[in-house]
């Protein structure tokens, strides 16, 4: 099932992270299914538990299905200082989920993460690969509204 991806890489353990990225990126639910773990471990001659332990170590990977859009909000000290708590609360409320959960319709997952490296525009968040900064609860509502229409919204930062 994942042969097409696997064959792009030499079967050496140092390619594990690359392969996991690619499997997950190609999975609409943005996770690494059990079948993937089995095939990767066969291919690289590792035990499934080794592969599983690597996946669960890194925060970008997941072993359970996630939403089409993963909302990652930073709560590291600089974003925290600039009000990330109110951003997280707002997201929780409008999406109706808590941190680590996915909405029932499979659209959104909410994750609270460490520094995203855009602290100059704190508080910040990422939705899939898109970055948003200088957030306010109101801005967050607008951004989520646009995603709800399931169109890529124009990315924005505070004026």
């Amino acid at each position: 099932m994942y042969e097409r991806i696997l064959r792009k890489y030499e079967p050496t353990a140092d390619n594990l992270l690359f392969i996991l990225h690619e499997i997950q990126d190609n999975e609409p639910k943005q996770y690494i299914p059990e079948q993937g773990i089995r095939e990767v471990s066969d291919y690289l001659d590792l035990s499934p538990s080794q592969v599983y332990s690597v996946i669960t170590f890194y925060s970008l990977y997941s072993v359970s299905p996630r939403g089409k859009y993963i909302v990652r909000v930073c709560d590291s000290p600089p974003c925290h200082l600039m009000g990330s708590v109110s951003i997280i609360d707002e997201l929780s409320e409008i999406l109706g989920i808590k941190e680590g959960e996915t909405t029932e319709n499979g659209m959104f997952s909410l994750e609270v993460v460490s520094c995203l490296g855009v602290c100059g525009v704190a508080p910040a968040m990422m939705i899939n690969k898109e970055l948003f900064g200088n957030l306010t609860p109101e801005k967050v509502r607008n951004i989520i509204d646009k995603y709800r229409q399931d169109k890529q919204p124009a990315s924005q930062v505070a004026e």
Partner: protein
Amino acid sequence: MPNKIYNKHVLISIDSSTLLAGARQVEKKLVETLKKEKLSESIKVIETGSLGLSDQGVVLVVYPEGVHYVHVTEKDVEEIVRKHLKEGEIVDRLLLEREPEVSTVSYTEDEFELEKQARIVLKNCGIINPEDIDEYIALEGYSALGRVLADMKPQDVIGEMKKSELRGRGGAGFPLWFKWNAVKNEPETPKYIVCNADEGEPGTFKDRLILEGDPHRIIEAMIIAGYVTGSHHGYIYIRGEYELSINRMERAISQAYKYNLLGENIFESDFSFDLQVKKGAGSYVCGEETALLESLEGKRATPRHKPPFPTEKGLWWKPTIINNVETLANVPDIILNGGNWFRGYGTEQSAGTKVYTILGHLTYPGLIEVEMGTTLRDIIYKYGGGISTGRQFKAALIGGAAGAFLDETALDIRLSYEDLGEYDAVLGSGAILVMDESACMIDILGSTMRFFQHESCGQCSPCRVGYQQLTLYVDKIAQGKGEMKDLDDMLELASFMNGSAICALGQSAYLSVSSILRYFRKEFEEHITDKKCKAGICSMSENTEKIAMRG
């Protein structure tokens, strides 16, 4: 470089923050409008990296005038083209309000000199198109490598690095020449060169902007490191969230291969070097050098015991150099100008410049490069534009989450390895988080402890359990349930972690706790005895519990 002469250049900054402000759309519109107005032949649009302005939306710079336009939207493009580019009249309403202290470029003669002086690492960022190798080459790019391969023995390069007294910018401040020399002298082969671009220290984004703005500089430095140490393989480990950095670096590497600056027989010498980007997957501890090696090998990123150090037993247990992005970015200019030139900048024990990310309650958060020894006061008030909120300065957290808290008595401290050492503080990653009176130190310490608790790799119990306990103490104080004795217990626990954790992630607890208690003990005591949070952030009840649950 193109041979064509253009009357004017318009630089458009393309980095993660301007992209999110719509830089691509503005660029497209600009190119279209120039075409429509038949100006494409005389005005060139150049994409460049970050201009060091973080909160100014899409930024355009028009040369030769050096005019900075900020918060430019698609709607403004017509006006800029018609008024300024056609008729030479500046569009006042879009001008940057202040002189761009942190901007990288100025083409008026004297100013250019002045700016250039303090710029080593960022000297090309915001000037060249990072996606075009020819632009880097036009500004002496790869000429340091040419000189090294043609005229210098490995020992000569090490000699210059030693004279320069360049120290690592990734956190620990270890002399660069020492590492390079150690790997050079190792008999074991193969050897590896690794660039640490995992940048996860909260408040730090300098490496991202260097990678996005001037990727070839890093490639050049790594090839030189390879030549000096007899290594033929390099890896740049970039954190997975840095999409644009990864793309730009991959593009730069493939261009360098095309020009035979990578691959076999570089510059027709008998030296060969291969370079590859590796993408991280989200982990702060992965930036610790031995954890990074584990991750490169495809494993969980748990730090190794040291010694042996990576210079002796590194990647696949072979001799390995690991250097930070900013450290490497200094190398080409040291070769071109000599170690003594570099040593001429800075203070007694801290040579050169330092790139800082300045943020928090500042008027101009962003990126600056200044000489080592610049005071904290200058950084906050001169470069950062002072406190944005009109309130009083209260505290600065210097060096990222793993750094030290200082109060206003430290404003005149010169930022250098030795001066910070006197305050038991560290330069760390160069992040400076500025807080005004509205900040609650208990809340910030809580956020810091939760960060480390979350990012602990879990292999050693002092760190894994220690941060959990520290978080509990802080939350207890925030809820008004603290006791005086908790403060001493926290210090004792942090001190124990400092002495027993495997890596600096666990050890750094002591710096956070001891520095915050040294300068802000009174605030902790108020929370404990008066059950009061002056900043009004700890509500002394359920609210903090809610925050606490968010570990």
